[in-house]
């Protein structure tokens, strides 16, 4: 299925290659580079390229292209999803999925790839199981290793592979039994000039961290399960039970995993927690313009909006900007023309404001289009859709676990047009 994998950085160096069948020459990447040249901007390389003898399916993650070489007809989504899984695993192991991290841990990377695929077919991809086969590097462990002579390679077969339930290993034991759930919601929205919502949607996930001994059988119920439009589940969840009773019933995997992901898309349900008042104008026949933006809270259910950052891609003709921020700090990069304003917390008494003069290149025509503002923010202890966990019950084991639920709302692709 997957013949070979090449990792390529932004400057076009192939810095790692791995072949699961016969060796495919690096020259196959030339087709990729050709497409890259054609696309002008690196990010615009199409994910599927056909060459006379192979297909190249690639993903772009954290400034690295993962280019896989395929020789037979395959479902494209399968390969794309798998490549993302590889990148996720690197992220999980090294804390970041960057070129330096991969180069520093090149031996572990090879070992991981060897275990994840055999003869081009996905084999072990669950992070729990992989971590038992190959231990992730930590500073402490490398010190311990060099003293005791042990290594980061597991020496016994992971028990998870022998359990009846593929996602949970047998014989788990903890002294403190804990189950934590994080309800995280991201708002994707496009707000138009006048402040009305063009498009809004909530993408939510429930990430769990379960450290429970034995084989616990959990059921989680919500106050308002009808809110959820489209739900996709971790394989451990009993689908029939959800369909009939709207209860999540499952034997959890051990450790961290994503329990469900869902969407709430009916527009009247999506609250927009911030508003932006903006005045961006360029004068005809003059080399300057005005910039005035205020951000304020709206529909935030009494919680504080924090971690607010605004980024704006200014038009090419902008030379520099002289602004004053009533709160936080701003930077303008004259090369990429990106204005970043780090606002911080919004206090309703004194709304943060950024205003001043925009200097244009002299003689350049007035920019056609006003820039759009991308906004990030966070609201702690609130799921903006109103989703609430009702209760968590455990069956099958005798002990009393410690339970916890946290809520967080974030901005996803939140864009304000001006």
């Amino acid at each position, binding site marked *: 299925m997957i013949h070979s994998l090449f990792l390529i950085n932004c400057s076009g160096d192939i810095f790692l290659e791995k072949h699961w069948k016969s060796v495919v020459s690096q020259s196959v990447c030339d087709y990729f580079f050709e497409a890259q040249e054609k696309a002008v*901007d690196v990010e615009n390389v199409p994910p599927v390229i056909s060459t006379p003898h192979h297909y190249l399916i690639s993903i772009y993650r954290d400034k690295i292209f993962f280019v896989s070489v395929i020789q037979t007809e395959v479902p494209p989504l399968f390969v794309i999803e798998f490549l993302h899984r590889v990148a996720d695993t690197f992220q999980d192991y090294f804390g970041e999925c960057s070129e330096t991290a991969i180069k520093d841990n090149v031996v572990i990377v090879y070992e991981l790839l060897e275990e994840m695929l055999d003869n081009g077919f996905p084999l072990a991809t669950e992070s729990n199981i992989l971590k038992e086969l190959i231990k992730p590097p930590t500073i402490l462990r490398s010190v311990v290793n060099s003293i005791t002579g042990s290594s980061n390679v597991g020496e016994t077969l992971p028990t998870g592979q022998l359990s009846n339930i593929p996602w949970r290993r047998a014989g788990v034991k903890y002294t403190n039994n804990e189950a934590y759930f994080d309800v995280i919601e991201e708002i994707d929205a496009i707000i138009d000039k006048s402040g009305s919502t*063009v498009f809004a949607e909530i993408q939510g996930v429930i990430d769990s961290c379960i450290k429970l001994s034995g084989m616990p059988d959990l059921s989680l119920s919500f106050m308002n399960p009808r809110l959820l439009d489209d739900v996709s*589940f971790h394989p451990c969840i009993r689908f029939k039970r959800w369909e009939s009773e709207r209860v999540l019933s499952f034997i959890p995997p051990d450790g961290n995993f994503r329990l469900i992901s869902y969407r709430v898309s009916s527009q009247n349900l999506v609250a927009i927690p911030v508003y932006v008042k903006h005045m961006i104008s360029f004068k005809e026949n003059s080399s300057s313009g005005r910039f005035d933006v205020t951000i304020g809270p709206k529909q935030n259910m009494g919680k504080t909006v924090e971690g607010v950052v605004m980024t704006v891609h200014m038009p090419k003709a902008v030379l520099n900007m002289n602004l004053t921020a009533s709160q936080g700090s701003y930077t303008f990069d004259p090369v990429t023309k990106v204005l970043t304003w780090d606002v911080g917390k919004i206090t309703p008494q004194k709304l943060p404001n950024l205003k001043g003069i925009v200097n244009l290149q002299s003689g350049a025509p007035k920019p056609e289009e006003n820039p759009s503002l991308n906004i990030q923010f966070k609201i702690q202890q609130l799921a903006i859709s109103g989703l609430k966990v009702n209760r968590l019950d455990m069956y099958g084991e005798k002990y009393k676990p410690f339970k916890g639920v946290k809520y967080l709302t974030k901005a996803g692709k939140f864009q304000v047009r001006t």
Partner: protein
Amino acid sequence: MPYLGSDEAVRELKRVLANPHVQADRLRYRGAVLRAVRLMARGADVSPLFPELLRARAAPDPAQKRLAQLYVGAHARGQPELALLAVNTLRTDCAHPSPLLRGLALRGLCALRVPGIQEYIRQPLLNGLRDKASYVRRVAVLGCAKMQSLQGDSEVDGALVNELYSLLRDPDPIVVVNCLRALEEILRQEGGVVINKPIAHHLLNRMADLDQWGQSEVLAFLLRYTPRSDEELFNILNLLDGYLKSSSPSVVMAATKLFLVLASEYPHVQTDVLVRVKGPLLAACTSESRELCFTALCHVRQILGSLPGHFSSHYKKFFCSYSEPHYIKCQKMEVLCELVNDENVQQVLEELKGYCTDVSVELAQGAIFAIGSIARTYTEQCVGILTELLGLKQEHITSAVVQAFRDLVWLCPQCTEAVCQALPSCEEIVQDSEGKQALVWLLGVHGEKVPNAPYVLEDFVENVKSETFPAVKMELLTSLVRLFLSRPAECQDMLGRLLYYCIEEETDMAVRDRGLFYYRLLQAGVEEVKRVLCSPKSDPSLGLLEDQAERPVNTWASDFNTLAPIYGKARWAVITADWAAEPRCARSPSAIPSASRAVTASSSEPLISEGNKEVFEVHPDSSSHTLIPYAHLSAEQFEKTWMSLDVSCKQALPWHGAAHPDTLQTALQVVHIQTIAMSKAGAQPWKAYLSAQDDAGCLFLVELLLEMENSEMQVLVKQSEARAEALQSFLVVLRTVMGTVVGLRS
């Protein structure tokens, strides 16, 4: 990348690895091996270290074994003699008490890939298949496939295949999936793994235990199984229902495909399925991973081709956001064009209008063309927007708008007036070839409605010497002759000048010839010119053809979740045709072999196994009707007879994908049907002419015509004597052959 000072480092490392003191110290030894692997990863030439690392592989430290194996696997091909030395160590490790090491050693053995290795790995593999640790069995099963690929084309080992089939009942889910994968590879020549009823039901029951990769592969394998009854079919569909809502998009897609294919006779079930996967598909379209998003969008377009209204209420999901890459934006614009309806047209157009002023020329023009195609249904609004865009006086925008106008007036004559009013003053802005051609064409065809048309064209004639594009000059000639017919007084003079220039001074031959052609045509008289040039100015019927009626789901169900939706059907056919044709070119230099050559060319090909040959021969014998071998007919004779006869039978047979002339020819040869002529593999449309004679002297002439779009083979039969039962039995033979060839390939 060459690594500076690597030679020195390698020599040093060789010394360290060979040092017995180092070898005695576990830690230092492993450190040295680690350094060697690091060097290898950086691209240094570490092949001189091979013998030392082989020895390191044999040391008891498991971590070190693993490291050394990374190295040995990568370098074994370069040094086959030395690699054979590794076999012993690895075979010993195959009996190690730790299952992890057994698996590792087995994988190492299969990775050696040096000639003659098969005899050494066979026994450890067979032991591995019966190992009690599932980890080892997983490795061993895939190892069987690797061993087969090492052997090349040699005979498939029946015992091994049986062993693998029985391992499909293994308690470990990954072993089961690996068995399928391995069998598929080993039996590729014979059409892959066979899924019969017990296997299908066994797999269905195991589905819940598999990981997402296994699930989506098993769903793909289940496509091969056809349920016997409707009851069984719906049972299967019920069992698999949950997978339509899986969290992994690839499982969702694989399940959708299986549903669509299985329910091919129940259109309402197919529609229901598509409604059910709407949610997951839309989620994938707005997913964080842009590649997933792109692929999902391609599939959305595919679905929209059959169910135009399917995503209309979700049109806002397909609005582009600023930071998306171009390929996603382009897909989204095309999706928007297809799902436009009376309710959302206003918003969609507003949105597309926003994209028209995008910084990227490609996107801006794409958006304008998108508006142009929506204009076929919602003419008035769109023409208004397009006219407004002309006011921006941007070169690329104006050019695209003019091109959109040209395509539009051809399909929607009612908007001609509006377009003609918008045209003046464009000529100063349009600079590129395409835009100029479109403008000149519009002025020529609808010149009588644009008051200053002759003057605009006059400017073009004045500057014709500095015009760089020959295509524009040709268009200018045609346009000016047309305009001359409707407004002779204003055009006569400049037409003369243009013709003079084209004939006397132009260096491009095509333009010169076109000039001469019009000159001679004009000599024949104005009436004659009018007769030739004044074709209809628009053809709304073409529009109906273009936004073709909804294609039934079944036309694309088998392509769903493959690469075909990404490329589009037409381009996909071209790509796959190239693939099929390539290895063939070397063997048959002439693509249309004569009937006599075909015998020698095909006799050496193992394309039809013995088993299949029997099928062919049974049929001619079972009927009272036999075709005589070696009834040769030359191409001339064939042509003469073909012309003189009437069609006695016309039929369509199902056919998937491209034709494979060699396979078909060999197959026909077996039943004594001669091939007179055939198109190359991948030709569009693909044709073949065949002939045959029966024992009663009746001659059959056949034409095969394959049109890729409707996946059917048109068969046309002519007969020298009208005998109905002879014709029937001939058709039976022909159909069997074709059916078998299709079966062989899919």
